Structures are given as structure tokens and as C-alpha cells.
């Protein structure tokens, strides 16, 4: 049995305006920040909303799912959410991630127990989630969502494929540069709120390794890494340090709607 005891349990907190059952109170559905949900016609969003649960997650920490399989679809509103795999000895590595431009759906119809969820966000991460089975059932009433969910699955497979190539063939230095760029893109900000420990857990390496590579990137002027935040100073330089996986994946994801956001502009996420 995988040792996940050191990871915290995910808690679904009741947001203001939610009933104890975890559904939104009857008030006009506000425009959700997640772009997939926001693109739904009002009637469809209304049909979906009672099935959505708003969850918050602290930034950085990895959380194990309650003993039921990781069978929810997550629509991030704020921040980036990732799926991670964990080994019998407690080593972790990121499998896939999504920001508010997308969604994280389960890789398999019944997610194995050796999976974790993690968030990177300015402040606590907020996402709406729905059990995949419920979503499947309600899909006929939410016709616009069906192609979007199909696109999410396709995007996920592109990520999985590229991660296999990257982890299997590229150096940690390349992988770190790529991770910083992709997370910055998905957060839509040049400031990534992550500690070196958090990044080490996602890359599957030791924290000291990230510290030394961060020092190297910093000396080259590409980034500045404070205690818990990385600032991308020179995007061009960072892209030069990344492997070909970064432009390749961007190209592939661009062809799959909803498209990835353009490379982070200078505006900060609110």
C-alpha cells in the first residue's frame, strides 16, 4: 500500500453562500473564473451548478484524496492544480496540471490510490469540482460542455506524452526551466508562488538539486527566487534553458480548444 500518510487530506470547505450539502445557494450564478465554465450558456451553467462543489486548497502542499479514487473533474478558478503520482517510498512526480483555462479530469475511469493533488496559487487555490460519474450523467443537459471535456482529455494526453519524453530524455535543468515557464503561463503571471521544496516534489528530485539549479538560473539572470516565490526576469533566457518540450507542447495544446493562454503577459493575476 502506498505510504501517503504524510500528505494532508483534501478538505472541501464550504464557501460563503454554500449549503452544508456543498451546493451553491439559489442566487444568480456568478460568472465563474474558470474559462470553460464561464463559456457555458447561462441555462447550462445553471443546470451544472448544483452538482459543482467549491473547494479550496492551500498553495504548495500535496494532498491525498479521501479514500475514494481520484474521480473528480476539477475546474480551477484561481491558481494551477496538478495531479501527482506517488511511489511506495513516498517519492512524488507531477503527471499533469491545469490553470483556469482548462480542467483536470481523471486519467483513468477509476483513479488508482497512488495519486495526489497539489495546488500552486497566489493565496489559497479555488476550484469547482464534480464527480466524473455525475458529470457523465449530466452531460446531455450541458451540451456545450461535451466537446470542451473531450478537448481536456486530449490536452491531458498531450501532457502525459510530453512528460514521458521529457522525464525520460531531458536533464533536470531543462525540466525545471520548462516547469517554471508552463506554470507561469497557466498562472498568467511572471510571479510563481512556489518554494524549492514544492518544485522538487513536482519534478521528482531532491530539494538541494532545485536549490542549486535555481542558483544557476539566478546567476544567469533568468529568474529571481525568493523564499516562496519565483519571478521570471528574462523569459527569453529561460526559454533558451528549457528543452524542446516547451514549444512542442504549447503548439499541440494550441490546436486543442480551449487553447492555452498566451505566454504570460506582464500583468499580474488579481
Amino acid at each position: 500500500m502506498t505510504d501517503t500518510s504524510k500528505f494532508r487530506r483534501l478538505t472541501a470547505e464550504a464557501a460563503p453562500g454554500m449549503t452544508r450539502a456543498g451546493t451553491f445557494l439559489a442566487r444568480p450564478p456568478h460568472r465563474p473564473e474558470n474559462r470553460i465554465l464561464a463559456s457555458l450558456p447561462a441555462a447550462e451553467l445553471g443546470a451544472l451548478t448544483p452538482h459543482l462543489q467549491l473547494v479550496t486548497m492551500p498553495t504548495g502542499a500535496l494532498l491525498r484524496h479521501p479514500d475514494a479514487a481520484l474521480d473528480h473533474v476539477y475546474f480551477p478558478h484561481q491558481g494551477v492544480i496538478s495531479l501527482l503520482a506517488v511511489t511506495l517510498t513516498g517519492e512524488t512526480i507531477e503527471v499533469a496540471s491545469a490553470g483556469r483555462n482548462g480542467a483536470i479530469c481523471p486519467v483513468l475511469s477509476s483513479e488508482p490510490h497512488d495519486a495526489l493533488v497539489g495546488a500552486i496559487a497566489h493565496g489559497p487555490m479555488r476550484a469547482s469540482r464534480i464527480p466524473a460519474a455525475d458529470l457523465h450523467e449530466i452531460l446531455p443537459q450541458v451540451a456545450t460542455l461535451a466537446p470542451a471535456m473531450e478537448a481536456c482529455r486530449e490536452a491531458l494526453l498531450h501532457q502525459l506524452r510530453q512528460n514521458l519524453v521529457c522525464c525520460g530524455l531531458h536533464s533536470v535543468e531543462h525540466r525545471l526551466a520548462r516547469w517554471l515557464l508552463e506554470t507561469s503561463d497557466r498562472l498568467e503571471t511572471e510571479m510563481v508562488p512556489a518554494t524549492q521544496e514544492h518544485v522538487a516534489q513536482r519534478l521528482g528530485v531532491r530539494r538541494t538539486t532545485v536549490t542549486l539549479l535555481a542558483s544557476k538560473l539566478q546567476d544567469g539572470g533568468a529568474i529571481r527566487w525568493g523564499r516562496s516565490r519565483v519571478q521570471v526576469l528574462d523569459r527569453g533566457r529561460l526559454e533558451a534553458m528549457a528543452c524542446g518540450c516547451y514549444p512542442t507542447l504549447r503548439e499541440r495544446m494550441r490546436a486543442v480548444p480551449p487553447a492555452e493562454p498566451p505566454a504570460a503577459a506582464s500583468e499580474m493575476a488579481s
Partner: protein
Amino acid sequence: MPYFYFHLRAHGTIHRDPEGMELPDAATAREHAAAVAQDLMSHSEGRTRHWSIYVEDDRGEHTLDLFFADVDPSLASFPPQTRMLVMQTSRRLGALTDALSALRATQIETRTLIARARGKPYLVLAR
């Protein structure tokens, strides 16, 4: 438990570890340094084999050196003499790049001093 700091010597530069790590003893510190070296070498042994990690304790005393070539898993299949040769060459290459780097720094300093003595401005290109 004592703290150990793991600094990276690569291409004539030292990249410092400001955080350090609490570990029981020097032997564990060496194991950790070896694991970090293997993380850094992964899929780029040719480029990183001549790097080394310089471990210090919390009094700033030098504890040990970990030369990447000594723990390079890609050399495991070679006969011992070849491995020894690669390990020695890697150390020499590391020492040479360190020396070249120091030489460059001295050169720049010297040129700056001379230019100043002549009362002339001098632009230094730092790479």
C-alpha cells in the same frame, strides 16, 4: 543534528546552497551529495561529469568533495581502468575550468587596474 551545505562547482563557478540541510553525520551528507549529483547528471552525463559538490558544515568548514564522475551510473558498465581514467580526467577538467575562471577574473582585474592607472575608462565584458 548538524547542518550541511551543498555547493555546486560547475564550469568554473560556484553556485551556493543558502538553505543547507539537517543531517546526522558526514556519511549521510555524502550520500545526499551523491543523490543530488545523480539528479543533476541525469540525461546529461557528458556535460556534467566534471562537476563536483563541495560540502561545508555549519561552521563553514570544508567537510567533503563529491566528484560527479565518481558516482556516474553511466560508467558502471565500463572496465575499472576505463572508469578510473574517466574519473581522473573529469577531476582534471574540473580543476582546469576552475583555474581558467580564476585566471580570467585576474586578467580582468589587471586590465582594469592598468586602465585606471592611465586615467582611461575601461569597459569590461563579463560573461
